[in-house]
């Protein structure tokens, strides 16, 4: 990670943790503004923060991780693309994918922490193989969502990113299914309470999954694009997305 990105993460992380899901926007917004985060994507020349898409990934991911109540990603994206434009939908799909990636990691962390503490049958739940295997499955899904979001951020930095954004949102959406299911299952009844923090993550995950393109939307779009290019172009297109000379 570059130094500015590390700095950005070090700034955003504690603030988002403190604001959390419940801070009212009257209180949250001034603090976010003080760090320049709503202008994250606006170029420096225009008085913004001048961040790129990998910077955005970090901030959006942390917003998801801490289930930040204020929709900072929507504010930041709104400054560079008008609502209703096609580009706006894509950028917001990326933003939601990044938030999902962060929220899944946080829910996984909660789940792992919980099963290591909660004892039944005389030992921590985490010692039971069935519990371990579900959490391992969850971890893989969270990893995939994070990688896909990273791929989309890199592509946005390079330029055209329709394929990668569609992929990231689709992959993140799929991960929500397993992530929320396992997280609630291993928490038992406590996870179903208002008092315990899991629902801040899972209720948002369910909502984000529907926003800016559900599975049907993105898979059909992506599939039509791939099919139109034809079987023989699929792999060469894929490699051309990352190879230096083709960029």
């Amino acid at each position, binding site marked *: 990670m570059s130094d500015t990105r590390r700095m950005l993460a070090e700034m955003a992380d504690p603030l988002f943790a403190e604001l959390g899901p419940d801070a009212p926007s009257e209180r949250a917004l001034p603090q976010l503004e003080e760090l320049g985060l709503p202008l994250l994507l606006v170029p420096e020349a225009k008085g913004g923060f001048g961040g790129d898409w990998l910077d955005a990934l970090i901030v959006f991911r942390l917003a998801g991780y801490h289930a930040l109540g204020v929709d900072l990603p929507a504010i930041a994206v709104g400054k560079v693309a008008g609502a209703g434009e096609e580009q706006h939908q894509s950028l917001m799909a990326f933003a939601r994918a990044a938030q999902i990636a962060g929220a899944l990691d946080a829910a996984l962390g909660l789940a792992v922490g919980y099963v290591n503490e909660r004892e039944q049958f005389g030992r921590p739940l985490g010692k039971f193989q069935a519990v371990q295997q579900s959490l391992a499955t969850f971890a893989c899904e969270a990893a995939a969502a994070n990688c896909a979001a990273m*791929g989309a951020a890199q592509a946005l930095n390079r330029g055209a990113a329709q394929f990668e954004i569609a992929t990231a949102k689709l992959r993140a959406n799929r991960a929500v299914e397993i992530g929320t299911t396992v997280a609630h299952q291993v928490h038992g009844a406590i996870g179903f309470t208002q008092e315990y923090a899991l629902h801040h993550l899972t209720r948002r995950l369910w909502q984000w999954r529907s926003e800016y393109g559900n599975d049907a939307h*993105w898979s*059909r779009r*992506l599939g039509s694009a791939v099919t139109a290019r034809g079987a023989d172009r699929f792999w060469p297109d894929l490699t051309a997305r990352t190879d230096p000379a083709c960029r």
Partner: protein
Amino acid sequence: MQTFVTEPVDWPDTAPALREQVRALVAEHGERDPVRRANSWTKAAPQFSRKLGEAGLLGMTWPTEYGGHERSQLERYVVIEELLAAGAPVGAHWIADRQSGPLLLRLGNEELKRRWVPAIARGEAYACIGLSEPGSGSDLASVRTTARRDGDEWIIEGQKVWTTGAHVSHFMIALVRSEAGSERQAGLSQFVIPMDAPGVSVKPIIDLTGAHEFNEVFFEDVRLPASALLGTEGEGWKQATAELSLERSGPERYLSSMVLFLELVRHAQGKDDPVLAQLVGRLAAEAWTLRLMSASVAAKLARGEDPALEATMVKDLGNSYEQAIPQLVQAAVDFGDAEAEVLRAVCFYLLQVSPSFSLRGGTREIIKGIIARGLGLR
């Protein structure tokens, strides 16, 4: 919690040229039959392996002193993903190039290195992995094949099973018990056993499709010189598990069914069928994500880090993906359609072989156990 830290991968500048080279070579000398192009890293074609050797595409990262080409790990990665995506028949040399060669270079004595490594790089020497035994599958630490010291020689007795490619291989790297009475992970060593050594015999095991890919291998009073010991006596467990990182991290863990996916795209073209389009989209998204993950593991290996946990995650996701493709295609496509003939043939072949994807290289359950340990649960 972040279990899989992704860093952008810097693909080598030489990648486009390398891809062209591989694509041209596969177009000329590769396999045409779509069924044989599926799961292609199990299809042995020594002639093709030698062609790759001649073209400098094997042993790519190894020192020139041992016939290698001193290219980067990511350049090698580019070549192997190209071969697999095209369904090239790479089975003969696959194991030797992927893990036995690197293992010999890292731990082998000069004699072993000189004898095997340059020949692997030429595409002429092939290897097999001697881990599993009839009583040791998931519980690998229970191996019972023994090596006993007799003067200057080692004597190997016992049996290995499920040995892929033993019948086309020139040597095996075997994990055996070298200390009498030792238990579990202790007292194990690795040996390089030439397959033509007296006392080694290979008996085919025919798989459910009727193909001969794996074997039983028997050792009866097999006498090896002291130099056949690989690495350090008694360190076999550590050596073998380090080797598994190489075995698990590659693109072969998600690309086995790529040919079927491509046939699906061919079938869907011009049909404007939303069910097929959605399936193509879903599978394409998964392939792209797995490629990013797999390459990111390769980049970590290239930086000298140990991405063992990430490698197991890629294997688990990748195996599930390549296993799911045939099931999903079967569910979505009408095979009664005469146009779907090729698709049907590839799909049925893969339906039959896909159960092995989450067994070979460590079963799903064992892999998930390793991930659970990485999560701090064990």
